[in-house]
């Protein structure tokens, strides 16, 4: 297929449509407005429907309805908007509905800023709504990966009957990079015998619901959900790493920040520092086992994020006290510079070489 130059926000839409997404419900918010714009223009051309809902809450409940009817459906927003969608995401998880939710994160808390951030790590990975549930959380670092993870996200959502979150930052949405779309014309979408697609008088009605008034019944449902999450934790970990066997220090970073760290690591290499990288691609399930590959002489793991250190919780769980955990981050829409990261690494490892 031909290489095309696309903005992340447009590429995620093209990927969704390539994956068979026919429905999009959303409400505008910077920095992801190209997504509803693209879907409004392109979905009718493939026989789909775009609706600008009256609110984020309405949008996610439209997603619930379309997913329940068996359609491939997506919604998108940015941080404060995704906060509003949490109730509906929890309902989707409870009712086991597949859907893809895109969050192009901006600075917070509250309405925050419109500039890039990664402040929704906890919201995304801990289950931002009520109840014991998990969403598969995928964090692309470039536009090609955004496309690939979005297409895969729809397949995984259907396979597990669970919401999938694409967690990008403002840069991922706004950046233009070349992308190639793989031919998917021979991919058949899975049957959904559970969907409320009409009985045609031939079967009992299907019911989509997240309400279980009987405590025993709900516990049984929760045990079923947890078994599904365990399966996801076993099979869906995605991670990129390098240099772990001889690194003096390892940086853990995801999304755009991981790219800034790569630039910093190559600068440090020229000055004689050996720094490795762990880039979680799936933020849930988290690649805990990757940290076991770090050599015993390593001085520690430096987490770098565009927030105040949310991922350090997972890094510390992974390290289990084996070595120190450090943090460097910027917030409010500021991105760390490679120089800042270089300086932080030198501060930890000590002096110039």
């Amino acid at each position, binding site marked *: 297929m031909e*290489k095309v*130059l696309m903005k992340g926000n447009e590429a995620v839409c093209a990927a969704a449509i390539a994956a068979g997404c026919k429905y999009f419900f959303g409400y505008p918010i*910077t*920095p992801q407005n190209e997504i509803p714009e693209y879907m409004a223009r392109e979905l009718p051309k493939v026989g789909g429907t775009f609706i600008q809902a009256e609110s984020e809450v309405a949008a996610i409940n439209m997603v619930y309805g379309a997913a329940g009817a068996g359609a491939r459906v997506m919604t998108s927003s940015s941080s404060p908007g995704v906060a509003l969608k949490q109730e509906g995401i929890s309902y989707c998880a409870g009712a086991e509905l597949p859907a893809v939710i895109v969050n192009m994160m901006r600075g917070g808390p509250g309405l925050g800023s*419109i*500039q890039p951030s990664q402040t929704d790590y906890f919201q995304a990975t801990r289950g931002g709504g009520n109840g014991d549930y998990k969403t598969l959380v995928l964090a692309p670092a470039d536009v090609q990966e955004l496309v690939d993870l979005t297409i895969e996200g729809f397949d995984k959502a259907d396979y597990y009957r669970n919401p999938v979150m694409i967690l990008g930052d*403002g*840069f991922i949405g*706004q*950046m*233009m*990079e*070349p992308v190639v779309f793989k031919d998917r014309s021979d991919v058949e979408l899975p049957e959904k015998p559970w969907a409320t697609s009409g009985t045609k008088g031939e079967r009992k009605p299907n019911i989509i619901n997240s309400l279980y008034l009987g405590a025993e019944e709900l516990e049984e449902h929760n045990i079923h959900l947890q078994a599904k999450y365990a399966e996801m934790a076993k099979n869906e970990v995605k991670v990129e790493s390098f240099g772990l066997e001889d690194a003096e220090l390892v940086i853990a970073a995801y999304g*755009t920040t991981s*790219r*800034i*760290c*790569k*630039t*910093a690591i*190559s600068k440090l290499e020229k000055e004689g520092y050996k720094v490795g990288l762990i880039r979680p691609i799936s933020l849930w399930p988290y690649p805990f086992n990757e940290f076991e590959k770090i050599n015993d002489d390593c001085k520690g793991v430096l987490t770098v994020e565009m927030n105040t250190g949310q991922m350090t919780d997972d890094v510390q769980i992974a390290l289990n006290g084996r070595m120190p955990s450090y943090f460097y981050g910027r917030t409010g*829409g500021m*991105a760390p*510079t*490679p*120089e800042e990261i270089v300086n932080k690494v030198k501060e930890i490892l000590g002096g110039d070489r």
Partner: protein
Amino acid sequence: MEERIIAAGFGGQGVMALGQMLTYAGMVEDKRVSWVPSYGPEMRGGTANCNVIISDDLIGSPVVIEATTALVLNKPSLDKFEHSVVPGGKLFINSSLISTKSTREDIDVYYVPANDIANEIGNNRVANMVMLGAYLEATKMVGMDSIEKAFYKVFGENKAHLLPINKEALEKGAEAVRK
């Protein structure tokens, strides 16, 4: 090779399109490319800028802090980005709108009267292409064939009638550097 470019000016001067032309042309030539716009509140009535990276290797940070080249189309952009250019780098100044000179002596500075040239051609709006022409002449970063292909991608096939005036602007910009 990694070329890290900042293109900056007033909203409406076409710096985003200038950056996209370069990015497309780089892609046409099978280089690694990225384009990031400023999309903050400063875009609304103030300065706009974009970061373009054209590289032989994987691109790390898409954000340009140490620029190898800056193209500045107005005075606030000169003030903001003059010191972002690395020693030995290039700075292209739209001298139609910027009367001050650069204070940098460790970089190559090109003064291009982009708006004057654009007005001579007959369309003030191609000043961005005059700047791009000057840049291409000085750096040979991408070929003119690739820029032409990029033109259709950025502006669409239905703007084909504007290609001649844009090509003229590119050529006059190149001439300004050759002088």
